[in-house]
């Protein structure tokens, strides 16, 4: 280990592994370490034994639940937007060759005590009871506007400057009802509170476009895809990319301590009495806790079930969004369910998660509206964690700390953080439209 690296990365969470992969491909000499003996850090997927150890303090799960190895329970459950930034990153790096994906069967939204499928086709939209007939016409005009909107083509703007006009104003222009706004803002634009209404409409419109493009991308029943064997496969896939380009991997390294010089710049990392030198350190918040501040808390229930979530047409994988207004909360609650169909549980078993930004100290009570939608559960575990953002000045200490994963139901914010960190570390902006493997194939010709 006593060696010199350009970058030492601490923690094998998804963000850290993507960065490790990108930096190694760039030709930097990367050392990547984790205190655990498995990949993924906070974004790992646990087998049954690991789950029991973590939440029950024992390593003997109930026998009737099936083989431990057949479980891959995500600790940060999110679906992947089929046309989103993570898919672009996977294609850009050619990491798709290590992974298999399936479409997520459906997306639902909670309204007045019931769940409704978010329409995935025109036919479904026409039949959906989420809107009345006249409201559907008004919504259709709005969707056509969004579909045609092109940031670079002023003609498509119809006289509206979306960097100034608020989301509320554009919704008002199309005469949409409150229920429709709730549905569009939370189930399509995937905002998790109502702050977006008073922000410039550009983000709102872009998010709806992303939803529509993701829906069209693979024409599954929803805009989401999800990897076989769970999300823990993603950090491992990017770690392999890094290794293929020369990254060095060490697991089970206790107490990785960042060393600083007299002026407070990171110069290396010490673990088990050995020190590796480096120019920059990249890590998750837990490795440099004195350089981060708490900004929130996520609370979650993890459930093992022997049936699909009721009223989802027996979907093997599904998302249900419970908008804040429906629950009288400050932010949305999300249900995420996957199953043996994605190889994350034995045949006949389903894993469901209920997640939200914590607003109380009582997860059982707080998450109850979501848990009540699940029906009977075989097992249920609760966990909460604080979310952190870095407070350091990277130019001063050469430390680049990722933000904690939020409660959102997809990875857009995750990749935005990664791309931002990449730019700060390298001074370059990543062009995700370039397919690296195609570029290198062209170079070989």
């Amino acid at each position, binding site marked *: 280990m006593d060696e010199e690296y350009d970058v030492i990365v601490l923690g094998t969470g998804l963000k850290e592994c993507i960065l490790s992969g990108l930096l190694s491909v760039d030709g930097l000499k990367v050392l990547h370490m984790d205190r655990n003996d*498995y*990949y993924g850090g906070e974004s790992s997927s646990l087998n049954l034994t690991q789950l029991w150890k973590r939440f029950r303090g024992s390593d003997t799960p109930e026998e009737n639940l099936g083989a431990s*190895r057949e479980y891959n329970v995500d600790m940060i459950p999110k679906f992947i937007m089929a*046309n989103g930034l993570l*898919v672009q990153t*996977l*294609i850009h790096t*050619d990491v*798709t*060759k*290590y*992974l*298999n*994906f*399936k*479409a997520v069967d459906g997306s639902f939204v909670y309204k007045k005590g019931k769940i409704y499928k978010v329409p995935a086709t025109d036919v479904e939209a026409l039949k959906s009871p989420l809107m009345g007939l006249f409201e559907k016409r008004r919504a259709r005009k709005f969707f056509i506007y969004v579909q045609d909107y092109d940031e670079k083509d002023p003609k498509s703007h119809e006289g509206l400057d979306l960097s100034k006009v608020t989301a509320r104003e554009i919704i008002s222009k199309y005469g949409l009802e409150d229920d429709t706004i709730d549905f569009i803002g939370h189930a399509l634009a995937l905002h998790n509170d109502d702050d977006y209404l008073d922000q410039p409409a550009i983000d709102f419109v872009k998010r709806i476009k992303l939803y529509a493009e993701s829906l*069209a*991308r*693979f024409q*599954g029943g929803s805009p989401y*895809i999800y990897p*076989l*064997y769970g999300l*823990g*496969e993603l950090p*491992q*896939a990017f*770690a*392999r990319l890094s*290794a*293929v*380009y*020369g990254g*060095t*991997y*060490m*697991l*089970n390294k206790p107490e990785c301590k960042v060393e600083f010089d007299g002026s407070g710049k990171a110069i290396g990392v010490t673990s088990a009495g050995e020190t590796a030198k480096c120019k920059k350190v990249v890590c998750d918040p837990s490795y440099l806790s004195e350089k981060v501040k708490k900004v929130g808390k996520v609370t979650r229930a993890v459930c093992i079930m022997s049936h699909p979530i009721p009223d989802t047409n027996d979907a*093997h994988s599904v998302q249900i969004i419970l908008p804040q207004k429906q629950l009288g909360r400050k932010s949305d609650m999300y249900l995420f369910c996957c199953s*043996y*169909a994605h*190889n994350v549980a034995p*045949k006949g078993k389903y894993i469901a998660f209920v997640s939200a930004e914590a607003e109380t100290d009582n997860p059982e009570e707080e998450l109850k509206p979501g848990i009540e939608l699940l029906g009977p559960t075989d097992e249920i575990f609760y966990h909460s964690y604080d979310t952190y953002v870095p407070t350091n000045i990277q130019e001063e200490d050469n430390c680049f700390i990722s933000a904690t994963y939020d409660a959102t139901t997809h990875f857009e914010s995750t990749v935005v953080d990664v791309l931002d960190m990449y730019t700060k570390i390298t001074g370059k902006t990543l062009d995700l*439209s370039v397919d690296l493997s*195609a570029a290198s*194939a*062209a170079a*070989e*010709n």
Partner: protein
Amino acid sequence: MARRPDEEYDYLFKVVLIGDSGVGKSNLLSRFTRNEFCLESKSTIGVEFATRTLQVEGRTVKAQIWDTAGQERYRAITSAYYRGALGALLVYDVTKPTTFENVSRWLKELRDHADSNIVIMLIGNKTDLKHLRAVATEDAQSYAEKEGLSFIETSALEALNVEKAFQTILSEVYRIISKKSISSDQTTANANIKEGQTIDVAATSESNAKKPCCSSS
């Protein structure tokens, strides 16, 4: 360089190479798939997996052989590496007793992460270094028998037994797959996917096509 379409095959078998750093895994792979040997003893970098198509008991089998990319050096192989592997070549160096002693740890890792039906072959490599041999053939043979593994000694440098090693493990995998596909109504290709279809994330839909198809040069 003209890019030929994928050769047609009846079966695709993923086989993984494991074992300590420096035992010659990458040279076994390059010898088998490209008939090449590299004398530099660098840790594996840049090697993904390699494929070769061959005949096994009359069927066309495409072997997809995965190398570790160097992650074994500090015992950091991903559990995903073993995902879907039907065979494993557990390699040690006959001139380095430590690499043979570590076989039991690699075996445990396989049993923890790989499918329980995986075919495991123990390989003692570098038999060309006769004067440096430190692991007796008999010792490895009896260990392999005790653990239920196939066993062969090879020299990637001299291309001794390399072809035979791969042919043997692929034949064993084929036999197991055939037996399984008779007893089950699932097709082999879909054995890992319980329901529904995987999607090709890398496929570019027409509406998203931004660059023209690259022509062969």
